[in-house]
């Protein structure tokens, strides 16, 4: 970053402003702040979440491409899979594989098929897998080029483990998702969000909507524009056929 800046000054001195622009464009390490183009650059552009409200808030207009992401829910089954459905569809659509590591319940194939996910590209690791093995295989899977998405259900992971997974994901061009119940304050994952049920004014559960709170997202820089960190989205809840 430092070298890029210094060389850009050098070319300004020479008076060739076109080459400066070129230089700025060509170096992916250079962060260009609020520049609108910066957000749309290829390297920074995420994978669309399928929920426009969420896309608007996330840096890169979508899920990060190769990183670790944490989804925190108070209980399993709050709609966390619904949230990832568009992503899963696009991953299997690209011919990549999805690995499910120790899911808390049995994964049900008809639901996946109904949601438009190709079950041929799904591998499930059983829930009785030990934590050590699960983490080992998660790291390996994240480094594997053909794995598009790794989903893991693990509570209480120490920071250095998440950091290691994050590094593996960055190297392997894979998105890893960790599902937790408990938030850890300064975990090194690139994106951390919590999913909760919406409550209406009288405190009753509004089951049609879910509330997503973005706790951390790497690359968010302008809090004035993107200040609103809580989004309400409508999850289908399996009632409409999401595949269509």
């Amino acid at each position, binding site marked *: 970053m430092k070298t890029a800046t210094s060389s850009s000054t050098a070319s300004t001195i020479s008076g060739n402003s076109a080459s400066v622009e070129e230089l700025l464009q060509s170096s992916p390490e250079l962060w260009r702040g609020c520049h609108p183009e910066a957000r749309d650059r290829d390297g920074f552009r995420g994978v669309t979440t399928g929920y426009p409200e969420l896309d608007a808030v996330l840096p890169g207009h979508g899920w990060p491409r190769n990183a670790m992401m944490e989804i925190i829910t*108070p*209980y*399993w*089954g*709050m*709609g*966390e*899979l*619904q949230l990832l459905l568009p992503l899963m569809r696009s991953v299997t659509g*690209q*011919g990549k*594989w999805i690995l499910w590591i120790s*899911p*808390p*319940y*049995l*994964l*049900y*194939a*008809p*639901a*996946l*098929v*109904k949601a438009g996910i*190709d*079950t*041929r*590209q*799904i*591998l*499930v*690791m*059983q829930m009785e*897998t030990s934590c050590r*093995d699960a983490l*080992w*295989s998660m790291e*390996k*899977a994240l480094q*594997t*080029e*053909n*794995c598009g998405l790794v989903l893991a259900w693990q509570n209480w992971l120490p920071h250095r483990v998440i950091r290691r997974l994050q590094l593996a994901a960055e190297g392997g061009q894979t998105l890893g998702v960790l599902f937790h119940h408990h938030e850890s304050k300064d975990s090194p994952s690139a994106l951390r969000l919590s999913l*909760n*049920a*919406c409550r209406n004014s009288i405190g009753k*559960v*509004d*089951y049609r909507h*879910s509330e997503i709170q973005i706790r951390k997202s790497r690359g968010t820089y302008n809090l004035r524009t993107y200040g609103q960190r809580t989004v309400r989205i409508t999850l289908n*809840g*399996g*009632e409409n*056929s999401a595949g269509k």
Partner: protein
Amino acid sequence: MEKLHNTGQLPLLAPVRRQSPVARLPGCSRTSLPPPQVQPQARRQQALWYALYFPQLHPKPDGLSESQQQALLRELAAVVENVSSLISIHPQALVFEIRSSLKYFGGADLLHRHLKPLLEKKLTDLNLAPTFHYAACPTAVGSLLLAKAGRNLLVYRKDNLRAALGGLPLSLLSDVLITSRKQYRRLSNMGLRQLRDIWRLPTDGLKKRFGSEFVNRLNQSIGKTPEPMARYRPLPAFNACFDLSCAVETLDSLLPVAEELLTRLCDFLKKRDLCSSHLLLVLEHEQQNDTLVNLSLRQATRSRQHIMLLLETRFTRMEIPAPVSAVRLEVMRFDAFVPADDDLLRENHNRGTLSPSLTTFLEQLQARMGDRHIKSIHCIADHCPEYASDQPDCPDPGTLENASRHNIGSSAGKGVGKRAVTTDNKLTVNNPRPFWLLARPQQLAVKKGRLYYRRRITLLRGPERIEARWWSGCDVRRDYYIAVDDCGIRLWIYHEKTAQGAWFLHGLFA
């Protein structure tokens, strides 16, 4: 004899000397030639071809198919490897070069005496009659003809070949010299009865009538033109052993040894353009049974790093019962090497084809955790919800690849039983189904007419009546509802249509 040679257009040969070179091999012989005499020094080192003819391997219609015959001949060739390194397989016969091994065995007789019991034993093992004809002469075609005639002759010098071959009847020449029945008929119509009769004819005429191939074979039989032939290649075998100077107690310190063995293996494979998909590493102990490490790979490889990686993963999970005194590496299965295809249109990736990296990953997983831990998933056409999803063990790469290539459908019979597998993404019903299914439905509490599962439950949609399995004894009659609890978790619950009428939680719409 001399007259014969003068009349033919073929070159003259020296007259057969009395005391000799046509020697008789031990065994049956109808000719009364003097006992064998090995010539002390051949003028120049020329090949001596020994032919074995097996009349019991007669071909179809009433005998063996070509592939069966080939297989048997390969087995016999393996025996012949004891005496020769240059072997060629012909229909019903083996031809091999023995000049180079004569000195070692001390002559053709001794060589024959060495080979005969081995061959007889092998033939008995193969359930064949332990008889064979044999002959040796300086040309392969010639020896083949002599063996076929059952002459059991040994001709040392090329000069004497014509005399030995001349008297062979025409009927014997089929397969070796005469390729078609038509050719045979024409030859016999010409009044030719013996090989010698053919030699009397002018070469150009023969060429015109029977083609240059025929004349070429004739010339080959007497050594005028070289005889190219396909060489028998034994199946590859690899077995490397490393004796340790002192017994090793930890597996980690075995890794360098294993690496050394693997380097040798990979060199071996590279030289022969092969790769392997099943290796066996044997750890030998002083006083105990050997520990076997079976490395069966999803995809054949010859990459040392890859096998080493798997071995390391395997070693982390293993314990050895006693110190290791020696390490042996065997290849259980060889595969042809298929180079990775560097597709120009790489972005047009095949859906579902296992890339090497995913295969590597799965292999590592299996090496570490065993086969049972990783599952694939697919739908089954069954109305009963708990039977509609199946998680078979992750299939072999072959079936996975086939499945993706043939757009699945055809994989119905791959061992999931007789139930129809709808992996082609067709559903039996189009009603909402949950992502999570409970392995065993949990009974819900009913308090004051309200349902509870940890929290209060409100029904949203339903019912969906499912009645199935009445034929199997465990009747399923349920009304399914979609419900939501106080935390906003969507549940899939059912009301059993039995006398008790209990409510159960069956799944979660996560």
